[in-house]
């Protein structure tokens, strides 16, 4: 047995678990049922419901927050415990409106389930009800306080996982409990009721609106029908919906989702997606995944004329331009076209990522990257983010960053040129370093300086780092005890005498310290040295996430070297964030080309002949909710997705077949993904898509990582000539927008606009002209309330706007902005 493993007995069943694990989680992992309402895995226990009461070694404890100790003996139910639980459920049922008949949660409601499970068949308690009215918390959230049981799950997930902290408990102004009940009622039920009578859920913001990320995680965790999406309210019973397990196709997190479908209407019996749900104990979605589901290419048919043209176009084509919102199978087909027909494959964003990944792999001597986001979330207590606008680029990396602060009592360093007040608010140990764009190399040198043991570093690097350490003096205020001599006159004798007393005095003192000029060069906050000391004090598990800013950086290769260097000389584990949904898959499967001339086929991109899943091309393609296939996500996992909606047009595989290169079905390509890149020769139908009760992910398979011979290298000094000053634009999408497909969804409202901080907006009008090199764009101005600083954000989610090339694949650019 592992030294940090414990053995406990639950209802006589031997269970082995990690030390410090909660009893509830151990029971769940071993298939033992303990009722629990307020607990969410991966979040902190709140003890709001108290129904998870069990007996451990004869003492009453709450299973969701009692940690297992070796040899513990747990009983999950006894007459007394059941009595207590029944009373708790009874209390929840008081004044709960009898409207299961219309409630959206009916059939999957935990209040219904536990009321039945615990056999509450009569009501013993009563209290006057108070007026509670429905409101909308945001453009997507609908709250019916009448149904709310104040389990606080919504508050918990928003704080511990999402990080917006947009919900809290507020006053209910309910009637006071009869004091006598304290004696006569089971005590946990009384305590719970007492609290229940006093609270309801309100947005943390005084405006009564959440002004949040609109991720909808709060809706998904709500055990009753209190929090529901505004779009879904009263449109369908849960049991009428067919759940299609799939993978979200909007970003590289590749979250597991369920598309829930049912016929569109009585007259139109074709399926429609009504909502997206998730296994919220193990997966947390963002607003794009949850609300951006209706992007299907509907009404496509097999247009033979266009198909013939397509075949001609493919025979003629010199290049295929595509993006990374495609499946691995499609990527493999494109690669096969390259091999057989010699076309060039153009995908600039995946190309940049591919070269960066290749460099990084070469220098570190292993394929892919060492960091694993799941392990990070559960184990790391110090996280560094570089090169990514964490709030926008990848919601799940942001959740990881946040969860580390909240659950692992960790710390976080956030290097980025764009100010973000949400990231700052994630924890008191989060320190943002808002540096000038172009200084990313310095940021990595600072990381080296902070985390590497100096003696192991090559001399040159060591000297270089030390050249930044300057002795400096600073004035500190100190309280010292000072001898004060006073003359006191003795009242009785009239004699005066001198008495010496100690008195505190604040003095200013000059002290010497070592100033780190690297930190100040990057614009780290005042007194960074001390702040860092505090941050790192309790940390022992370090991780770092690297974003898209680095991939097409003019100094990308040196950045890759520096990262490999950091991995070699520090204990930091590094993980890359692939820029788009399947960038990692495309980077592994396709040999991408830099440039191409001549006749081009565009797949969801511009081209002479356009294949499009948006329905606006020369030949229709299925959208990703109409296709089976796999993605390679940032967790280095190959995950399957399924078709939720039917599609009657041609697929890429049909074109392949017509060219004599096809398989019978698209998913026959799954087993043909390149094994030398870490894929496995497994057929699509052999891939699972689920989680075990213990939270273990059984989705597809993990890519195999292979050791390679590390290339010798020397890191270069930073090149300051790429520093950007003046008016700067950052290529970055608003939250919930990732691509043309999210934009298509009717519940994603974020417009294509220039996003600026509130302060910056004061200096701009409603509409501005943005000049990037010699191209000028007219964009409306939108305030991003969580942005700070002067940099502006230009989105690139609409491929037709051709924003990506304007930034030369990079993300920062000097621009001229003028009011229109």
């Amino acid at each position, binding site marked *: 047995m592992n030294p940090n493993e414990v053995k406990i007995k639950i209802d006589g069943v031997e269970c082995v678990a990690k030390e410090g694990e909660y009893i509830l989680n151990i029971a769940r992992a071993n298939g033992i049922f303990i009722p629990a309402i307020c607990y969410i895995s991966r979040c902190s226990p709140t003890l709001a419901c108290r129904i998870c009461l069990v007996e451990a070694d004869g003492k009453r404890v709450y299973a969701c927050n009692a940690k297992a100790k070796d040899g513990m003996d747990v009983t999950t139910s006894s007459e007394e415990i059941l009595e207590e639980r029944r009373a708790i459920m009874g209390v929840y049922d008081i004044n709960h409106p009898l409207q299961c008949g219309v409630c959206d949660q009916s059939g999957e409601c935990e209040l219904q389930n536990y009321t039945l499970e615990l056999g509450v068949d009569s*009501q013993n308690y009563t209290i006057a009800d108070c007026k509670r009215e429905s409101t909308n918390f945001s453009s997507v959230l609908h709250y019916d306080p009448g149904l709310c049981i104040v389990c606080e799950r919504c508050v918990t997930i928003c704080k511990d996982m999402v990080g917006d902290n947009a919900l809290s408990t507020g006053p209910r102004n309910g009637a006071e409990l009869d004091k006598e009940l304290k004696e006569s009622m089971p005590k946990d039920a009384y305590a719970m009721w007492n609290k229940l009578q006093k609270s309801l859920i309100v947005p943390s913001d005084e405006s009564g609106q959440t002004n949040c990320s609109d991720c909808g995680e709060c809706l998904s965790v709500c055990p009753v029908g209190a929090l529901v999406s505004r779009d879904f309210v009263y449109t369908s*019973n849960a*049991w009428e919906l067919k759940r299609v397990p799939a993978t979200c196709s909007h970003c590289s997190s590749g979250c597991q989702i369920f598309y829930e479908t049912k016929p569109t209407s009585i007259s139109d019996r074709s399926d429609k997606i009504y909502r997206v749900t998730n296994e919220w104990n193990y997966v947390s979605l963002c607003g794009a995944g949850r609300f951006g589901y209706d992007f299907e290419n509907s009404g496509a048919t097999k247009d033979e004329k266009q198909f013939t043209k397509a075949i001609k176009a493919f025979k003629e084509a010199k290049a295929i331009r595509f993006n990374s919102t495609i499946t691995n199978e499609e990527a493999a087909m494109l690669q096969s076209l390259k091999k057989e027909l010699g076309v060039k494959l153009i995908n600039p964003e995946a190309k940049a990522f591919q070269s960066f990944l290749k460099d990084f792999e070469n220098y570190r001597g292993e394929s892919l990257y060492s960091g694993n986001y799941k392990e990070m979330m559960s184990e790391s207590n110090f996280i560094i983010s570089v090169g990514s606008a964490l709030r926008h680029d990848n919601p799940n990396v942001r959740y990881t960053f946040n969860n580390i602060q909240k659950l692992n009592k960790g710390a976080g360093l956030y290097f980025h040129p764009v100010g973000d007040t949400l990231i700052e608010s994630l924890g008191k140990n989060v320190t943002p370093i808002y540096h000038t764009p172009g200084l990313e190399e310095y940021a990595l040198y600072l990381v080296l300086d902070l985390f590497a043991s100096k003696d192991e570093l090559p001399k040159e690097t060591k000297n270089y780092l030390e050249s930044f350490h300057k002795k400096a003096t600073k004035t500190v205020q100190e309280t010292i005890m000072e001898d004060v001599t006073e003359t006191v006159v003795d009242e009785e004798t009239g004699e005066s005498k001198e008495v010496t007393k100690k008195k505190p005095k604040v003095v200013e003192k000059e002290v010497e310290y070592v100033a780190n000029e690297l930190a100040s060069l990057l614009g780290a906050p005042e007194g960074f040295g001390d702040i860092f000391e505090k941050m790192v004090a309790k940390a022992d598990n370090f991780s770092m996430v690297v974003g898209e800013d680095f991939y097409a950086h003019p100094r990308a290769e040196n950045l890759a070297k520096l990262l490999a260097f950091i991995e070699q000389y520090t204990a930091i584990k590094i993980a890359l964030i692939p820029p788009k949904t399947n960038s990692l898959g495309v980077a592994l499967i396709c040999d991408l080309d830099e440039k191409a001339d001549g006749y081009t086929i565009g797949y969801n991109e511009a081209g002479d002949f356009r294949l499009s899943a948006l329905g606006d091309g020369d030949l229709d393609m299925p959208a990703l909710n109409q296709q089976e296939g796999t993605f390679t996500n940032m967790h280095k996992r190959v995950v399957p997705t399924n078709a939720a909606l039917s599609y009657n047009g041609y697929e890429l595989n049909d074109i392949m077949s017509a060219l004599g290169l096809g398989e019978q079905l698209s998913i026959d390509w799954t087993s043909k993904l390149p094994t030398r890149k870490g894929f496995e020769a497994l057929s699509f139908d052999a891939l699972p898509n689920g989680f075990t009760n213990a939270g273990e992910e059984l989705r597809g398979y993990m890519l195999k990582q292979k050791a390679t011979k590390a290339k010798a290298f020397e890191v270069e000094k930073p090149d300051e000539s790429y520093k950007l000053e003046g008016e700067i634009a950052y290529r970055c999408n608003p939250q919930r927008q990732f691509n043309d497909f999210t934009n298509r969804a009717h519940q994603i409202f974020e417009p294509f606009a220039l996003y600026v901080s509130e302060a910056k907006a004061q200096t701009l009008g409603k509409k501005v002209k943005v000049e990037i090199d010699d191209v000028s764009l007219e964009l409306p101005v939108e305030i991003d309330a969580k942005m700070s600083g002067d940099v502006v954000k230009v989105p690139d989610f609409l491929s037709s706007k051709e924003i990506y090339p304007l930034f030369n694949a990079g993300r920062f650019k000097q621009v001229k902005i003028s009011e229109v």
Partner: protein
Amino acid sequence: MNEKQKYIMLDLGGTPLTPWCRFKRVVKRTFRIELFIGLWVTIREMFKTLFMGKSHTTKYPFEKMPIPPRYRAIHDMLRLLESGHYRCIGCGLCEKICISNCIAMETRYDENQRKEVSEYTINFGRCIFCGYCAEVCPELAIVHGARYETASEQRASFSLFEDMLTPIDRLKEQEEFAGYGAPTPWADKNIKKTPLAY
């Protein structure tokens, strides 16, 4: 013969061999006492109908039999007597329980924050008139009516919500349903009351 089959041979008497024997058997089987009883009943009833005006025949379609409450014909959708609003709350239980999967409905969140039943239909081409929907309905909204004449140019003629709903001007004539799904006269006795002491 297979040993295991164990056929039992019946003694049916001999098969008549000659035509004469066959004729004799026909006569014997035909002229039994039951024939004359039957004839007597017919003549008696004919006499009653013709001369005494006592008939057992309903003159359909001019005359219709009363339908007992438990008869299950085309559904009715009832209204609340007080407000006239339809009773159906859109809970979807009938849709779920329907054994032939022939009920479909659409609901939405309306302006008064209520669940509105925007469309409701029963496909009578598939309905087997089992009565489950009426039995499960918590609101006594869907019930079986007495409309058994279902010949029509189109099946769709009586399958929409409006077709089944009590016409608002005939609300007064709406009768409480006593068939499947109606509460029993002793239902009150089985209910535990919730305390409302305040």
